[in-house]
């Protein structure tokens, strides 16, 4: 028992590695939110009228919405008027090559371990970086262009591919969807846009790194990925933020559209600042992610490794519209200290013979609370649809919590749903066994946790699996004496 106590104490003492602040001149909007803020952002980005109109609709919807009430924790009040809704590095973010980028910014990326320079070990990853609100640079653009792949910031896409944006933006997550999605619609600053043409298999992982740097700002990026018929893309996002005493808000929207026969694989390694061990500061990560399998045999797969943020509230969802389309959700969520993660997925089986698979692994340590909240819905036309869900919780220490709230709904008698959930703790006998083979307790826990999360980590592209594994071990670093 003593060992556990010590383990917990050390676990709680772990520090956030990415908590540095970058000293860069920033262009920041005034604090507060009203119609003028929305106009200000739209004007800053030289947007067309239709986009401003849409933002306004989002803002009106936001004003009418209420905060969600489903959580089993006390939600702190969020003062939407104390946030600045736009922050960008002052230096104009248009670079012909990496040499022109503010060296301070490059050092930041280096600290984050992002493969900015093209000769770095993660060669083969095209990166779009969103720094506070603005997309800073996209590497590999030329090579992708040759294949007809569009990978750019949403702002550029608005200018260069307005027909795609007008057609698809908000088509999966409408501006009225929920309070945070409405807010995002009103004030989204930037984000990534991907279009994969028919029959093209994107030859490299596309990747975005998000970072909140400025104080009192929120980050509201918007990602839109369209995979046209029979195409394939794997997309990765990573995120970090500096340590601040105040809570900062991150309310992103991600929309995925997979046409007939297309496949989108979306992986997230989320490591926003979680706050200190008393729960002071940290990011509120309220993200709306949804994908639509619009055509037959389309496939969308979400993989997420959630280790950061003070509060995470996100349910990457999949609409399985096309017959024989399939969806997957793989998640590892770790909460430590005072962190709260309330995450899961919603899968709507609309078409016949649709398939889905959900693997969720929650790990709670310290006073962390981890909830799986999910929905599997079989619509009346979802003949012979199948779902399998496995959600497991691992508890480290007796002050944390693990919760499961699955909604299982079926309106079709040929559909099959299977749901299993278990809760367990790291066994003292497992730790002792590894000790006896010369492995210290800290490493033993890292091994056990990584083993426990393996089904999910295996879904990540190789380089990121290694990173995620490191991150998990780091989260539980110093866990045993």
């Amino acid at each position, binding site marked *: 028992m003593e*060992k556990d106590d010590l383990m917990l104490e050390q676990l709680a003492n772990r520090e956030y590695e990415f908590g540095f602040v970058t000293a860069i001149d920033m262009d920041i909007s005034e604090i507060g939110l009203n119609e003028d803020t929305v106009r200000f952002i739209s004007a800053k980005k030289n947007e067309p009228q239709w986009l401003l109109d849409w933002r306004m609709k989002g803002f009106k919807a936001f004003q009418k919405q209420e905060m969600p009430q489903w959580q089993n924790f006390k939600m702190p009040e969020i003062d939407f008027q104390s946030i600045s809704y736009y922050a960008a590095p002052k230096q104009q973010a248009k670079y012909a090559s990496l040499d022109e980028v503010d060296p301070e910014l490059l050092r930041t990326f280096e600290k984050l371990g992002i493969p900015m320079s093209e000769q770095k070990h993660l060669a083969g990853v095209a990166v779009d970086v969103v720094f506070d609100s603005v997309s800073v640079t996209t590497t590999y653009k030329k090579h992708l262009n040759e294949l007809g792949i569009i990978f750019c910031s949403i702002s550029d896409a608005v200018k260069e591919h307005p027909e795609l944006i007008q057609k698809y933006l908000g088509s999966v997550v409408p501006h009225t969807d929920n309070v945070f999605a409405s807010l995002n619609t009103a004030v989204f600053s930037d984000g990534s846009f991907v279009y994969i043409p028919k029959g093209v298999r994107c030859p490299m992982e596309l990747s975005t790194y998000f970072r909140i740097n400025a104080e009192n700002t929120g980050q509201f990026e918007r990602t839109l990925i369209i995979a046209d018929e029979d195409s394939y893309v794997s997309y990765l996002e990573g995120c970090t933020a500096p340590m601040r005493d105040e809570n900062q808000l991150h309310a992103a929207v991600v929309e995925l559209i997979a046409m007939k026969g297309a496949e989108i694989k979306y992986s997230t390694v989320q490591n926003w600042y979680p706050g200190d061990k008393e729960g002071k500061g940290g990011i509120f990560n309220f993200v709306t992610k949804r994908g639509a399998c619009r055509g037959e045999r389309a496939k969308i797969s979400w993989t997420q490794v959630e280790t950061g943020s003070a509060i995470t509230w996100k349910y990457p969802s999949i609409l399985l519209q096309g017959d024989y389309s399939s969806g997957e959700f793989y998640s590892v969520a770790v909460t430590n200290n005072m962190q709260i993660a309330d995450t899961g997925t919603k899968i709507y089986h609309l078409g016949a013979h649709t398939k889905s698979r959900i693997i969720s692994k929650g790990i709670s340590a310290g006073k962390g609370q981890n909830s799986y909240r999910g929905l599997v819905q079989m619509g009346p036309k979802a003949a012979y649809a199948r779902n399998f869900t496995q959600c497991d919780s691992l508890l480290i220490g007796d002050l944390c919590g693990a919760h499961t709230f699955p909604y299982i709904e079926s309106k079709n008698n040929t559909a099959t749903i299977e749901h299993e959930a278990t809760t367990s703790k790291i*066994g*003292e*006998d*497992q730790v*002792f*066994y*590894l*000790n*006896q*083979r*010369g*492995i*210290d*307790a800290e*490493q033993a826990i890292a*091994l*056990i946790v*990584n*083993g*426990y*999360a*393996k*089904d999910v980590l295996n879904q990540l592209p190789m380089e990121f699996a290694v990173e995620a594994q490191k991150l998990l071990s780091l989260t539980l670093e110093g866990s045993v004496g």
Partner: protein
Amino acid sequence: MLSIKNLHANIEGKEILKGINLEVKAGEVHAIMGPNGSGKSSLASVLAGRENYEITEGEVWLDGKNLLDMKPEVRAREGVFLAFQYPVEIPGVSNINFLRTALSEIRIHRNLPPLSAKEFLKMTKEKQALVEFEAKLANRSLNQGFSGGEKKRNEVFQLAMLEPKLSILDETDSGLDIDALRIVSNGINKLRSADNAFVLITHYQRLLEYIVPDFVHVLYNGQIVRSGTKELALELEEKGYDWLKEEFHGNESINKI
């Protein structure tokens, strides 16, 4: 190599080892026998450093180092290997990855250079062959879904890989059929050398037909009440433990008078 002096240990306030004395030299094989509940597995656990045991008296030395001061993993790195009576299952942790981690920790502790991936694989193959351990098991999750026999053989495979000085086999023979027992014993015999030592904890004399011990000890009620050579094991097989119990309790009652 191993020197146990007047070792007393409690578990949950109950005295379970009541003054154990044992000397094990390099190159020797000792068998410890005794009825259920006599303290055999407790002795193994205490030597490996299981934390729910409280040492109330006595000393344990391993090549001049105080074993009782060490954490379990340090004991392992110093060369104490416990083959568990009930090896645990750890889902998702591959056998090979686990062994690699263990071996690299042990090598660091012993100031040995790290093994390259190639060398490690080579060693794995050799040891697998040596102890007749199937390669497909080596790649599975640690003990997960293994049969009882496979788990025991995995213990011996790990023993071969980690090359300990002192191996304690806690009822490794229990639950093995005769073929599996032969394989496990052959493996252990191949691993015997002038530099290492084995302590075999067992219920059954049959193991000792395959691994011939230099000494046999009888543990009863937390103490070694008899020591001898392998003939003692035969005697136990023939007579059971009852006569020993009577003798022991007889002595006790005499002492009380």
